[in-house]
């Protein structure tokens, strides 16, 4: 039983990362009607910016020398991470306005090709700037051997608690934006009924940019959380993207709550299926793919998504 509980708790940390990236994908999807496969890489760019801000100028981390001109550099990791969210948001907005301006109007195939191209480009920029070597990102939360809460003999780590606090705060802020601000309401109107929204004077391109910006920040949050418990390297977010896609498909592309729940379910599948079926750890990604396929077959609009209704 203790092992079962431990596996559940272990899976929760990954669930927070997948949830954050899944929400990011869901928001950009709501903005454009298309899936942005470069979401993870945009977030990873933010992660590296945080690293550069937190690293001394002589550390051979690209960008550290540039940021050393700012008073107070090297910055605390929390400050650096917050700044990274801003940078990732700005990068996402810039990419949407310049490169992906008509992303939402393009055919699904063209949109897929363009987002793959964007993924490759951003990944190449990251590799060229920061290289392939893994970097120590630092700890956002204490993670040594004593940093846990005992739950019936299992360890609920501070990192898991902290990650979920951050993700829920971020999701809460997104929810408040969507429900309490004019821009957020306009965004919801746009995603619910694009045609009518334009007719009443809502500017779709500006809101799409806002959507991408929020997505970029959430992706950077996911990358920072992942790097804080692992190592920051250029391949960190690629696998995370696959799990996050499974999560957002499971939860529903138009449901932020669904994306969070989907992240939890996918992470638990990733932990439980190989562990209890005695499968090699390489099969953990297959668990996510099985979830993805099953959802597409039996409930393609997701657990919390809205079933598309066609009126004739």
């Amino acid at each position, binding site marked *: 039983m*203790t*092992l079962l509980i*431990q*596996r559940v708790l*272990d899976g929760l*940390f*990954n669930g927070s990362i997948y949830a954050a990236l899944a929400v990011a994908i869901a928001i950009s999807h709501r903005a454009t009607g298309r899936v942005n496969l470069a979401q993870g890489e945009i977030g990873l760019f933010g992660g590296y910016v945080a690293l550069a801000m937190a690293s001394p100028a002589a550390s*051979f981390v690209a960008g550290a020398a540039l940021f050393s001109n700012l008073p107070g550099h090297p910055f605390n990791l929390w400050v650096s991470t917050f700044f990274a969210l801003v940078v990732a948001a700005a990068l996402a907005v810039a990419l949407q306005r310049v490169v992906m301006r008509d992303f939402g109007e393009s055919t699904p195939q063209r949109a897929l090709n363009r987002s793959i191209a964007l993924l490759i480009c951003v990944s190449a920029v990251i*590799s060229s700037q920061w*290289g*392939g*070597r*893994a970097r*120590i990102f630092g700890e956002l939360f204490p*993670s*040594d*051997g004593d*940093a*846990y809460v005992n739950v019936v003999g299992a*360890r609920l*780590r501070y990192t898991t608690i902290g990650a979920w606090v951050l993700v829920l705060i971020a999701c809460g802020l997104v929810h408040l934006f969507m429900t309490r601000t004019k821009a957020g309401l306009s965004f919801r109107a746009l995603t619910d009924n694009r045609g009518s929204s334009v007719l009443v004077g809502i500017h779709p391109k500006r809101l799409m940019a806002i959507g991408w910006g929020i997505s970029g920040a959430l992706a950077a949050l996911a990358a920072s959380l*992942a790097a804080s*418990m*692992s*190592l920051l*390297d*250029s*391949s*960190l977010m690629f*696998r*995370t993207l696959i799990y996050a896609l499974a999560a957002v498909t499971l939860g529903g592309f138009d449901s932020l709550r669904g994306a969070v729940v989907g992240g939890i379910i996918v992470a638990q599948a*990733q*932990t439980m299926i*190989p*562990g209890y079926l005695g499968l*090699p*750890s*390489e*099969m*953990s*990604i*297959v668990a996510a*793919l*099985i979830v993805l*396929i*099953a959802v*597409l*077959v039996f409930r393609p609009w997701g657990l919390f998504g809205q079933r598309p209704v066609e009126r004739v």
Partner: protein
Amino acid sequence: MRRMKKNFAALAVVAMVAAACGGGDDASDAPAEEPAAEEEAAEEPAEESGGAASEEDTAAALEEAAEADAEADAAGVPETFEEWQALWESERQAVIDRAVAEGWGLDEATGIATGPEGFTLDTNLCPEGWSNTEGLDDGVITIGATSATSGSLAAYGNIYAGLGYYFDYINSEGGIGGYTFEVDLKDDEYVATKTIEAWTEFFQSTKPLVGHTLGSPNTFSVQPEFNSQCVPQVMVATGHQAWGDPVNNPWTTGYQLAYSSEALLWGAWIEQNTEPGVTVGAIIMDNDFGLAYEQAFADFVENSDHIAAFEFVRHDPAAATLTNEVTTVASKIGEGDVFISMTAGNPCVLAIQEAARAGITETAAAFFTPSVCKAVSAYMAPAGEAADGWYIVGGGIKDTTDPKYADDLYVSWANATLEEMGGDATISLQGEGFANRGFAWENMFRIAAEMPGGITRVNLVLAQRGMAMTHPALLDGIGFGMNGNADAYFIEGSDISQFDNANQTWVQQGGTIDLSGKSPNCPWVAGEGC
């Protein structure tokens, strides 16, 4: 329509599972021509641990070392750089004199090259058009190399940065035998299929004089090609015991302590330092590299009355975290048991951190990290306080960033020269490439240059096969050299050390263990072992 969707989905699931299991760019593939071999090997451990001294010899050497100390090993070591250089020159000359006396070299008439202790190279088996001097172009020797410089093992790419700076230093001193050196490095991301692609390109276009590979799966993937192309595959950066096979793969040489020897030393140490009935838990990288450790240690456990069980979990080489795997192992071991990490690259750090988070380091009698994770700056320092107290069978190599070697004559020279050449002496693995491997490569070329015929592919192989030097980057008391078919491993000694996180240094436990010449050759058969 719904039935079609379900059928399609079922087919897609099967295709996805097949694709995930198929390997592709997964580094866990065995050599391309025998994809099933690794599964067989996992199910049927080798009947004997080739590539390592006997368990009796290993245990005896460990006991002897435990009662000795490092200072005793240092007796007779040169005290000035001039004395060192004189020693190396005399050692090189001894090899050359032996080569002349025993008639080593290529007989152009028969096409057979002979070396020490029955070693032979049959150049009649080389492809038509093969040249003994291909790669010697206008006074420049091209060395081809593949290594991970990106991905989870990217830190090892620093070895080649260090080696490159060493050759820059050699070039600045006038080169060797009238030649200067260039290292042409390709990134294979520790993916065996990319190693094959890179070496296909090397063999077809660059055509280097010699080649070098890093990684067990990667080296396996191109070893047949090296040996059929008759290109020296020099001092490969992997400790797999299979490289000790001078009869079947004469063009391939290893370098570092064999993983099988390391595994035996773990076993011997556990028997001598823990209570009977201990369980050993391990996480193992799921590829040829990890399998080498697993097989050797499993064999040891099978013959051990002291170790009650060996519980392990294999992990994906590309895994970003090891939480699930370590949690599983933690559930199988308890107070007084032992934990061993059999992994490489980024997982070195992850294993240490996760073991601490899972509480293993609080309850285990001992916890080991493998020799490939020894680099302080790359793998121990980043793990933070969790790194304190880890044991290692260190492979006998001095970490040039370890503060206890700050006053070491050779290490201090190497660090200063590395910096002069543009390198970074704070990066352990650059120091490894410069101080450790650079020395060996230089002496191989110097010996070959003085042999009849000068620097040729055959002479470079013979120079390695007969080399016997006092290596300044190895711990005192550890021999360095090979002896034809009688001794196919350069390094067969080690330290056992424990990490002191406060001082960021490995503290050697007792004296060094030297098993030079005691490891039998390892004619490796995929799926069976030595």
